[in-house]
C-alpha cells in the first residue's frame, strides 16, 4: 500500500470467489493497454482485483477518461463573463439575464443506436435530460442531431425510423418540447448512425447545484430505478469500433429506457434540490455507479465507501462488478446531508420511487466498495478519475482526401438539362427537403413556451415572466469537415451562429459533440485536431465560449470511419420576444434582400452528391470576421425592427433557401420573383453552398434602412426580388436561364419527400 495516499488502517481487499484471474487477455478485453495496466499497478501498489480492473477499465475508457481528446479540448476557449459553469460538470451553465441561468449540453448515443435504434436513441435522450436536471435546472427543450446512410437502404430506414420513434416517445412522455435539430443522409454514415441529443434547462441562478460528494459523513443514496444487468461496460463498448458481429455480442448490453420513471425522477430531483436535504446529485450514466461516485468524490477531494448488498437490484445474484458497471437507466446517486436521509426518502416516496442508503462520504480519498462488509475494491479516488493517461498523437492528412479536394469540378458547373428539374431534384433530396416527418412525431408545444418550433432556422423557447427567450440550433455538415476539417468546423460554427441571428438571438455559448472515427489512426487524429482548432478559432471570433460537450470516437464499421462530425450546439439570447424574426416571407410586396456574396463554389455540395454522387472538392471558403459582421448586421436590423423575415443559406444553396422562405410551414405560402445578376454560372449561383449569406425581406419603406445598416457593417447587400402572391409562382432568373415552379409543385416536392420515402416497409434486417 502506498504511503502517499495517506491510508493508515487500510482494509485488506479480498479477492472474491469465482472472480476470474487477471491475465493479459482479460486486461486487453477491458480495453486497457499494457502501459495503462502497469500504471494501474503502480497506483494500487499491487495487482488489482477483478472488480477493481472493471472499475479502472470503465473510468479510463475513452468515454469517461477522454484519453485521446483531453489535450485537444484544452484548446477551446471556455470563459466569458456570462459563463457560470464551464466544462467539467454535468452540463455547462450561462447567465441569460433577469436572474435566470441556462444549463445546456449535448450528448451522443451512437453505438447503442446502431445496435438497437429505438432504445439507443430513447436512452440517449434520458441521459441528457438527467445531466440537465441534476444541475438544478428544469429541462425546457431538446434538440436532436442525426446522421444516417442513404435512405435507399432498408436497414437505414429501419434505423432512422427507430431512432426518431425512440427520441419522440421518450421526450414526449417526459413532456419536454423538441425545438429543432438536424439530420443528414449520406453513404458516409452507412452502418454507423449518429444520434446526438441536446437539452436546455432553465433555473434561477441561485438554484444551481453541482455534483460533488462534499461533507464527510454524509450519506450516499441510490435513487430511482433498480440496478439490473443491462449495459454493463457500455462506456468501454462506446469506445470500441463496431464490427460485423457487434449485433450479436452486444445484445445483453442493450438498455431499455423508462421515460415514465424519468419524469418522476425529474420532479423528485428538483424537489430534493429545493429541499436543501442533499449536497450533491449525479446521474448514474456511462459507467454507472462507478463514475458517478468516483467523480463526485474526486470533485470534492473526498472518498466514498459503498456497500453493494444495499444497492436495490432488479435481478438476483448480481456481483459487485456487475452492480458497479451496470448502466441501467433512470438512476441517480444522491449525497444526503447526515440526518436528513428520511426527508430524501419521503420525497422519493411521494413520487413513487425508491431511495436506498448505500454508503457514505469519507475523508480518506479512497473509492472503497464493500460486499457484505468485506472490501472488494479499494482504489485511490483521484488517480481513478484524473489519472487516466492522455495522449497526443501524430496527425496526418490522408492523401486520399487531398486528392478528393483537388478533384476538377469544372464539368459540374454546367447544368445537365433543365435548371428547374435540377432545382426540384435538389429541393426534394432528403437532405434539403422538409424534416416534418421527424418533428411531427415530437411534441413541440408542451410547456407552452415554444415561440419558434422546428422548421425555422433555430428553435426558440421563451422565459415565462420575462420578455426574454432562448434560441438554440445544432449544425454540422460532415462532408465539408471530411474534405477539410478545419474549414468544415468553422463552417459548422458559422452556420450555427447565422441560424441564431436569423431568429434575432445573440449567439452566446456553445456545446459540442465530437463524432469521429478511431483516433489511433493518424488521419483521424488529424481530423480531430484540425476540427478542434477550427472550432476554437470561430469560438474566439464569435465570442461564444464552449461550456461543455461530448466526445464519441471509434465511429467505424469494418474499418471505415464516418465523416468527421463535430456537431455544434449553439444557444443565443433574445431580449425581447416581440422581436423574434420568422424564416418565412410575411407579406406580398415585401422586398427580398440578399446579404453576403454569391460565389462560384460547389465543393462538397448537396448538388454534387445528388447529380454526380460525388463528395469532393474544396469546401466553400469561410471568413469568420465577415460572418461576425453579417451576424451583427442581421441583429441590428432585427433590433431596429427593419426586417420581416430572415433565413440563412446552407445545404441546397440560395435557390433552396428562397424556396423555404416562400413555403414557410406550408400553410400560407407566398410566391417570389427573383433576379440574380451575378456573373456566375447558374449552378454555383443557385445551388452552391457559399458561406456568409442570409436572405432577409422587408417592407419597401424599410429598404433604405436595411441597406444602410448593411453598409455600416461592410456587409454586401443587394435587392434580388420581391414577395408575390402564391398564385404567381416562384421564379428565379439568372443570366443563363431560370428556375420556375408553381407553389403546389414546390410544396409537394419539399414536404412529401421524407414521408413518402418512409412509407416503404422497414424490415430490421
Amino acid at each position: 500500500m502506498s504511503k502517499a495516499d495517506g491510508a493508515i488502517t487500510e482494509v485488506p481487499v479480498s479477492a472474491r470467489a469465482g472472480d476470474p484471474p487477471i491475465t493479459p487477455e482479460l486486461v486487453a478485453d477491458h480495453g486497457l493497454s499494457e502501459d495503462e495496466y502497469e500504471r494501474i499497478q503502480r497506483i494500487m501498489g499491487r495487482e488489482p482485483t477483478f472488480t477493481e480492473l472493471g472499475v479502472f477499465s470503465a473510468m479510463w475508457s475513452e468515454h469517461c477518461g477522454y484519453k485521446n481528446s483531453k489535450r485537444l479540448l484544452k484548446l477551446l476557449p471556455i470563459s466569458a463573463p456570462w459563463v457560470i459553469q464551464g466544462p467539467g460538470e454535468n452540463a455547462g451553465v450561462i447567465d441569460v439575464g433577469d436572474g435566470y441561468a441556462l444549463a445546456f449540453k449535448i450528448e451522443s448515443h451512437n453505438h447503442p443506436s446502431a445496435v438497437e435504434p429505438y432504445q439507443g436513441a430513447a436512452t440517449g435522450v434520458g441521459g441528457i435530460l438527467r445531466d440537465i436536471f441534476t444541475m438544478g435546472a428544469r429541462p425546457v427543450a431538446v434538440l436532436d442531431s442525426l446522421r444516417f446512410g442513404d435512405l435507399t437502404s432498408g436497414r437505414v430506414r429501419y434505423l432512422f425510423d427507430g431512432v426518431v420513434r425512440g427520441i419522440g416517445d421518450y421526450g414526449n412522455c417526459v413532456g419536454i418540447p423538441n425545438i429543432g435539430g438536424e439530420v443528414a443522409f449520406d453513404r458516409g454514415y452507412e452502418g454507423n448512425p449518429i444520434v446526438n441529443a441536446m437539452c436546455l434547462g432553465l433555473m434561477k441562478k441561485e438554484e444551481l447545484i453541482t455534483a460533488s460528494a462534499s461533507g464527510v459523513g454524509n450519506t450516499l443514496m441510490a435513487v430511482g430505478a433498480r440496478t439490473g444487468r443491462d449495459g454493463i461496460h457500455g462506456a468501454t463498448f462506446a469506445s470500441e469500433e463496431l464490427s460485423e458481429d457487434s449485433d450479436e455480442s452486444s445484445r445483453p448490453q442493450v438498455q431499455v429506457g423508462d421515460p415514465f420513471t424519468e419524469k418522476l425522477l425529474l420532479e423528485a430531483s428538483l424537489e430534493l434540490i429545493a429541499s436543501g436535504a442533499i449536497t450533491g446529485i449525479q446521474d448514474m450514466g456511462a459507467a454507472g455507479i462507478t463514475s458517478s461516485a468516483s467523480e463526485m468524490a474526486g470533485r470534492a477531494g473526498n472518498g466514498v465507501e459503498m456497500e453493494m448488498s444495499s444497492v436495490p437490484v432488479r435481478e438476483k445474484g448480481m456481483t459487485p462488478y456487475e452492480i458497479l458497471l451496470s448502466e441501467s437507466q433512470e438512476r441517480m446517486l444522491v449525497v444526503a446531508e447526515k440526518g436528513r436521509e428520511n426527508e430524501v426518502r419521503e420525497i422519493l416516496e411521494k413520487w413513487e420511487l425508491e431511495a436506498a442508503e448505500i454508503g457514505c462520504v469519507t475523508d480518506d480519498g479512497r473509492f472503497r466498495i464493500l460486499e457484505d462488509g468485506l472490501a472488494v475494491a479499494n482504489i485511490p479516488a483521484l488517480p481513478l478519475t484524473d489519472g487516466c493517461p492522455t495522449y497526443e498523437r501524430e496527425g496526418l492528412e490522408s492523401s486520399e482526401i487531398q486528392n478528393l479536394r483537388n478533384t476538377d469540378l469544372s464539368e459540374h458547373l454546367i447544368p445537365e438539362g433543365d435548371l428547374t428539374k435540377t432545382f426540384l431534384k435538389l429541393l426534394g433530396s432528403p437532405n434539403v427537403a422538409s424534416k416534418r416527418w421527424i418533428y411531427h412525431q415530437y411534441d413541440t408545444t408542451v410547456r407552452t413556451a415554444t415561440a419558434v418550433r422546428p422548421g425555422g432556422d433555430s428553435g426558440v423557447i421563451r422565459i415565462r415572466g420575462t420578455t426574454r427567450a432562448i434560441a438554440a440550433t445544432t449544425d454540422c455538415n460532415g462532408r465539408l469537415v471530411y474534405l477539410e476539417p478545419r474549414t468544415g468546423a468553422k463552417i459548422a460554427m458559422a452556420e450555427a451562429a447565422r441560424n441564431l441571428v436569423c431568429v434575432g438571438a445573440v449567439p452566446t455559448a456553445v456545446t459540442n459533440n465530437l463524432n469521429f472515427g478511431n483516433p489511433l489512426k493518424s488521419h483521424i487524429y488529424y481530423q480531430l485536431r484540425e476540427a478542434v482548432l477550427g472550432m476554437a478559432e470561430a469560438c474566439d471570433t464569435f465570442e461564444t465560449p464552449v461550456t461543455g460537450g461530448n466526445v464519441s470516437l471509434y465511429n467505424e464499421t469494418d474499418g471505415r470511419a464516418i465523416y468527421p462530425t463535430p456537431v455544434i450546439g449553439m444557444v443565443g439570447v433574445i431580449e425581447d420576444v416581440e422581436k423574434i424574426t420568422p424564416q418565412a416571407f410575411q407579406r406580398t410586396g415585401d422586398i427580398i434582400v440578399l446579404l453576403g456574396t454569391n460565389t462560384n463554389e460547389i465543393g462538397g455540395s448537396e448538388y454534387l452528391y445528388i447529380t454526380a454522387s460525388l463528395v469532393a472538392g474544396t469546401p466553400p471558403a469561410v471568413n469568420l470576421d465577415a460572418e461576425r459582421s453579417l451576424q451583427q448586421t442581421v441583429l441590428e436590423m432585427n433590433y431596429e425592427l427593419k426586417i420581416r423575415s430572415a433565413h440563412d443559406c446552407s445545404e441546397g444553396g440560395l435557390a433552396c433557401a428562397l424556396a423555404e422562405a416562400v413555403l414557410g410551414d406550408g400553410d400560407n405560402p407566398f410566391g417570389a420573383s427573383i433576379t440574380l445578376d451575378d456573373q456566375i454560372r447558374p449552378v454555383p449561383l443557385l445551388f452552391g453552398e457559399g458561406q456568409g449569406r442570409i436572405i432577409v425581406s422587408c417592407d419597401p419603406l424599410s429598404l433604405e434602412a436595411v441597406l444602410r445598416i448593411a453598409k455600416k457593417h461592410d456587409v454586401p447587400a443587394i435587392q434580388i426580388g420581391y414577395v408575390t402572391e402564391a398564385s404567381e409562382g416562384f421564379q428565379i432568373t439568372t443570366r443563363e436561364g431560370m428556375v420556375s415552379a408553381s407553389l403546389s409543385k414546390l410544396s409537394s416536392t419539399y414536404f412529401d419527400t421524407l414521408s413518402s420515402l418512409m412509407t416503404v416497409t422497414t424490415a430490421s434486417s
Partner: protein
Amino acid sequence: MSQFQLEIRVKPRPGLLDPQGKAIHNALHSLGWDSIEDVRVGKVIYLELEADSREIAVDRVHAMCRKLLSNPVTEDFEVSVSEEVEAEPL
C-alpha cells in the same frame, strides 16, 4: 393446401427492463392483488396462412418473426398453430 391459424407471441428478453410490466405490476399491487410476481408484457399476433403443411406454415412464420415481427435485439418469440383447416379443392 391447408389454411392455418397461427399465434405468435413476442416478449421482451429476460434480463431486459420491461417498464410496462413494472407499471402493471405496481398497479395490480395497489389494487390489492399482492401475491403477483414477474409481470412481463409482450405482443401477440394472430394471422392466417395458406401452406402445404403445418411445418411449412410454421417455418414461414419463423422467417417473418426474424425479419419483421420481432426485434431480435430485445425480444424473443414463440409460434403456435391454433387451427388447421383443409382448403376447399378448387
